[in-house]
């Protein structure tokens, strides 16, 4: 190798962080204003949800701190009875809408993230098993995936919710609702992950090094995983992003059907369900602010997902 080559090589190995910033993805990101704005919105919303207990002026989940007489205070105006003022007003229970949104977003995001994580774990594991083992295991898994795909998510969620509610002792239902939502949404969303992973596994399985490992009697599974996971990282990331937005909306939809987060610990969806009752009554802020927050959150995540999908697809660059 000539000096020049060596020089080029050394020039091209900067630090990890610089490399990440210099990567194609980051480059594409810096040149996509929509993606940057979306990322900023998501970041702000997620951070404010995480920091809700410190940012929020009130704790809407502490029933003892609520004063019912504060109910229906318009944004920025003093309440007629208590003279208290709230930035975004209060809801029907006298809860500060701003604080409730922050705490509600926490629940929506928690449900969304956990559901997607669950779907991802189930999908990746089943996809790997199906692709690697083949045979009847694959048939069964992919058949179940087909059924799952035909069976609409909201019905699956309602079924699971119904069963889980029945077997949970009433005393725990309050806390259970959220876990059940996660389970319901997660279980209805694993198929996409499984399909992608199975596809990648099939490709990887036919590669020479795996065949070779097999010939010499080694178990190629762990080698494969090391090769498969990096390969499916991109599509899985894209699916996960879009699924996150869908999961958050699914939670909201389920709350309309009465299977969402409880009203004492409302999610954004529950807030919207409650708020839509005040559509005609003039208390627009009870509906508008949670709805706008949900829209901003889901839209930004979706836009990020869109950008990610195109940016991570080498053939579309």
């Amino acid at each position, binding site marked *: *190798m*000539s000096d*020049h*080559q060596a020089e*080029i090589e050394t020039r*091209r190995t900067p630090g990890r962080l610089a490399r990440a910033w210099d990567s194609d993805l980051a*480059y594409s990101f810096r040149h996509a204003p929509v993606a940057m704005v979306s990322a900023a919105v998501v970041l702000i919303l997620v951070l404010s949800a995480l920091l809700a207990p410190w940012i929020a002026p009130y704790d809407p989940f502490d029933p003892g701190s609520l004063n019912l007489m504060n109910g229906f205070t318009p944004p920025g105006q003093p309440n007629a009875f208590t003279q208290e003022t709230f930035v975004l007003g209060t809801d029907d229970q006298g809860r500060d809408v701003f604080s409730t949104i922050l705490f509600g977003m926490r629940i929506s995001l928690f449900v969304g993230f956990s559901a997607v994580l669950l779907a991802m774990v189930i999908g990746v594991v089943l996809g790997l098993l199906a692709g690697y083992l083949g045979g009847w295991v694959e048939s069964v898994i992919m058949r179940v995936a087909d059924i799952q795909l035909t069976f609409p998510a909201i019905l699956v969620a309602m079924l699971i919710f119904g069963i889980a509610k029945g077997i949970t002792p009433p005393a725990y239902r309050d806390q259970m609702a959220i876990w059940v939502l996660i389970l319901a949404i997660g279980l209805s969303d694993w198929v996409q992950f499984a399909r992608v992973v199975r596809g990648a596994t099939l490709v990887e399985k036919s590669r020479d090094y795996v065949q070779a490992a097999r010939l010499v009697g080694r178990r190629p599974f762990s080698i494969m995983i090391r090769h498969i996971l990096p390969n499916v990282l991109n599509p899985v990331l894209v699916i996960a992003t879009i699924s996150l937005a869908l999961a958050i909306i699914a939670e909201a939809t389920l709350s309309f059907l009465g299977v969402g987060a409880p009203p004492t610990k409302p999610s954004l969806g529950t807030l919207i369900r409650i708020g839509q009752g005040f559509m005609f009554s003039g208390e627009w802020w009870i509906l508008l602010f949670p709805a706008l927050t949900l829209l901003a959150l889901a839209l930004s995540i979706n836009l990020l997902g869109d950008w990610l999908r195109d940016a991570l697809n080498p053939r579309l660059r």
Partner: protein
Amino acid sequence: MSDPVLSVRDLVVEIPTRRGVLRPVDGVSYDIAAGEILGVVGESGAGKSMTGNAVIGLLDRPARITSGEILLTGQPIHRLQGEALRRLRGRRMGMIFQDPLTSLNPLLTVGDQLTETILEHLDVSPAEARERAVAALDEVGIPAARQRIGSYPHEFSGGMRQRVVIALALCAEPELVIADEPTTALDVSVQAQIVALLKRLCRERGVAVMLVTHDMGVIAEAADRVAVMYAGRLAELGPVRDVVTAARHPYTAGLMASTPDASRGQRRLRQIPGAMPRLDALPVGCAFHPRCDRAEPRCRQTPGPTLSACDGRAACWFPLGQPKEVLA
């Protein structure tokens, strides 16, 4: 003598990227006459396919022609766009792609694909188009062409599919055919047949063929003249026999030495040390100098000469078989 069918003059193709502007094709010039096959050879990334794509106007964004000209029978076509360019494609210039498996639309019969091309460019009735399609298949050596015209691409073998692709490229009777690695994806036994077919069609129809390949064997077999590309530039251009037997550019020589068919002799195959530099990291001076055992300080400092600046044969400061001072 009339104009050559294709004439490329100082063609430059650039790709703006965030690391600066890349030049996959940098000042390339050559002609192809009717009935002539010009082989274009080089390693992957040398710019040979990009040249072909530039000629037929299929450069993918953001690559674009920034200077030079392309003349088709004397008329400039490098500035044509949209509809005007589309009329030329297929009708006056045909193209053959590397992989016959993917170049045919799997959901349409070969007959459909042939007739739609014929109807697009020639003023004939559908029935006549169909007759011509059968004739085109027949001409490229598809047995029982009339029966197979209703078949889907997946019903043909790889070699047969490439014949179909050739029929498609030629069915509207173009003057120029760009064959981009037409044999690379095929079995060795089939490669020779396809090369022979191309050669025959070229002779019979007087078509000018630009045969892009990295396989010196194919060049030696089929081409009349050969253009060797390295890092976007023409390294050497000349009649096949001359280039093969007496390469002037050190790169060509290295390429010959590493090709079993072309070298013929009993010598051990030799490798060219190193690899072609990336376009975004071209060395100062002649692009080949880091790998050249004849490199002098001048080669490291001054970019290699253009072909026309030399003898029109090898773009090298110190060509093989010439006294070193000739161009000094």
